[in-house]
């Protein structure tokens, strides 16, 4: 319990630091929301008026304080581009969330069986092919794969209509189908990485004395694999998967751009270029929370798997 409380406190501290940093970041970026909104109508006088109206002329800490006050009470404020930030987020979050979970599920579904198989069947040639294929797939940047997938499946085969993401409100099935393509682009290098990770972790574990002894005693190899080795390999694998989850979300920012998906990543980019700080701020906090939660979850799962771990970090 004490451990959980400590974790929670660390989590909160991290989030606070992230949100403060993000807020401070806007102070150094050129351009501000007022000039952006006025565009070529901007004159120093009108900019000053608008800045006052938007509360941007208040001291930095006051602005941060009022934002933080709003955020913790559940109100992330008004977007400078219209409407409450909460509305914008609730429209965009499901897209990114679904995309990320889909890519993660694909990664797990493909990587776990493939990884285990590559451990059990270790012919020389196959091992080499595996390694090379793995390295190649790992080298495929999602945005490049995304372009190729779009070209093949949208332009040539018409399996999906690029740019016509229907949205979950309109068509759940169609939306999931559309998301499958960016999810594949995101998942390909992750599958390869996870297979490789699994393989080397399990092989290293199988090299240990207790496993050798068990096999020498005549125990069935796959029995040993499933009963002992896997369990003991789980900790680094879980940590790795948490990292993968976080990286998938980061990758989705670029992939959303390639597939023109109305997700958080695209909203983040347009909000940054539009200097829509309340929106940027909220997205940053959500993305950071995602990363921190994934890591914390991995920690907790690992403690559950292997209580010896204590508070140690890997």
């Amino acid at each position, binding site marked *: 319990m004490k451990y959980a409380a400590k974790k929670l406190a660390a989590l909160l501290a991290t989030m606070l630091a992230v949100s403060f940093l993000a807020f401070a970041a806007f102070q150094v970026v050129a351009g501000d929301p007022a000039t952006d909104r006025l565009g070529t109508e901007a004159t120093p006088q009108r900019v000053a008026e608008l800045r006052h109206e938007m509360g941007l002329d208040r001291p930095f800490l006051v602005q941060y304080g009022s934002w933080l006050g709003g955020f913790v009470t559940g109100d992330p404020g008004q977007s400078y581009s219209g409407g409450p930030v909460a509305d914008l987020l609730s429209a965009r979050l499901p897209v990114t969330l679904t995309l990320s979970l889909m890519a993660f599920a694909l990664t797990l579904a493909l990587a776990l069986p493939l990884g285990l198989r590559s451990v059990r069947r270790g012919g020389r040639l196959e*091992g*080499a092919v595996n390694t090379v294929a793995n390295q190649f797939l790992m*080298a495929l940047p999602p945005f490049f794969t995304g372009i190729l997938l779009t070209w093949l499946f949208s332009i040539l085969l018409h399996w999906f209509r690029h740019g016509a993401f229907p949205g979950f409100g309109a068509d759940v099935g169609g939306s999931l189908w559309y998301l499958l393509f960016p999810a594949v682009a995101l998942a390909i290098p992750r599958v390869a990485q996870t297979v490789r990770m699994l393989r080397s972790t399990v092989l*290293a574990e*199988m090299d240990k004395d207790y496993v050798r002894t068990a096999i020498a005693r005549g125990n069935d190899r796959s029995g040993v694999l499933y009963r002992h080795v896997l369990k003991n390999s789980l900790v680094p694998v879980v940590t790795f998967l948490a990292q993968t989850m976080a990286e998938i979300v980061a990758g989705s920012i670029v992939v959303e751009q390639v597939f023109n998906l109305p997700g958080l990543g695209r909203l983040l980019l347009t909000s940054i270029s539009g200097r829509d700080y309340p929106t940027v701020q909220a997205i940053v906090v959500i993305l950071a929370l995602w990363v921190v939660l994934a890591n914390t979850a991995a920690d907790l799962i690992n403690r559950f798997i292997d209580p010896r771990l204590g508070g140690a970090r890997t």
Partner: protein
Amino acid sequence: MKTLQKAVRAHRNACFIAGCIITGVLLALILLGAVWTPYDPTAMRGSETLLPPSFTHLFGTDNFGRDIFSRVLKGAGFTALVAGGTVAIGGLFGTLIGALTGYFGGAVDEALMRLNDTITAFPSILLALVCVAVFGSGKYQVLLVLGIVFIPSFARVSRTAFAALRDANFVQSARLMGAGSARILFVHMLPNTLHILLPALTIGFNNAVLAEASMSFLGLCGQPPEASLGALLSEAQGMFVTAPWYALCSGGMIVALIFGVGLIGEGLQDGRGDRNA
């Protein structure tokens, strides 16, 4: 089990060699590109726009009639420079911080790891944008920015490696023999962490290539006409139907770069477990 290990080692060696060959060829091309390209990469020829690959233009030409092969060479140089610089900065400082915190532990360790968490949790795109806004988006600025961003991940790997050796026999005996901390860290421990650190560097390099490519793909890095591979790819995306070779050549170059270095990293890992940067 033994045979399996052997097989793994054998093909890892093959990987290492193959990786070195691929990377060597690419590096040679990049170095060549630094001093000589078949055409001026920015010279425009209105009569030669969007030509498909041929012997005069190996990778064809773009919409301004610029030679894509020359642009890809320069772009690869840009990307490799940024990625290499990133790994140099990130690797150097990351290893140093990781070594110190891993070896000494304590409150500083805890604080630094917490800071690590914060930086890792901060969306990299935003971090990049802010830094670009402050420092500018030239290649050296981006190199510096990415280098700093990469410090935490290297620090984490190196910290784990050093922490694992902290109580190893040879370290304790060195300590007993009165070796100073610096000597223990860098003479005794460092060589024994290389099997973890070197592969981490190759993975770091690849992540840096990806990060740079993503950033320039989003237009956050580099100034035209100077273009990195990511910027070329982003440009090429818009003419995929009329000039697919453009996207394939620039994207293919990114893949080749990562693939080659990835194979080297694979080969460096001599089957003693795995660490990811």
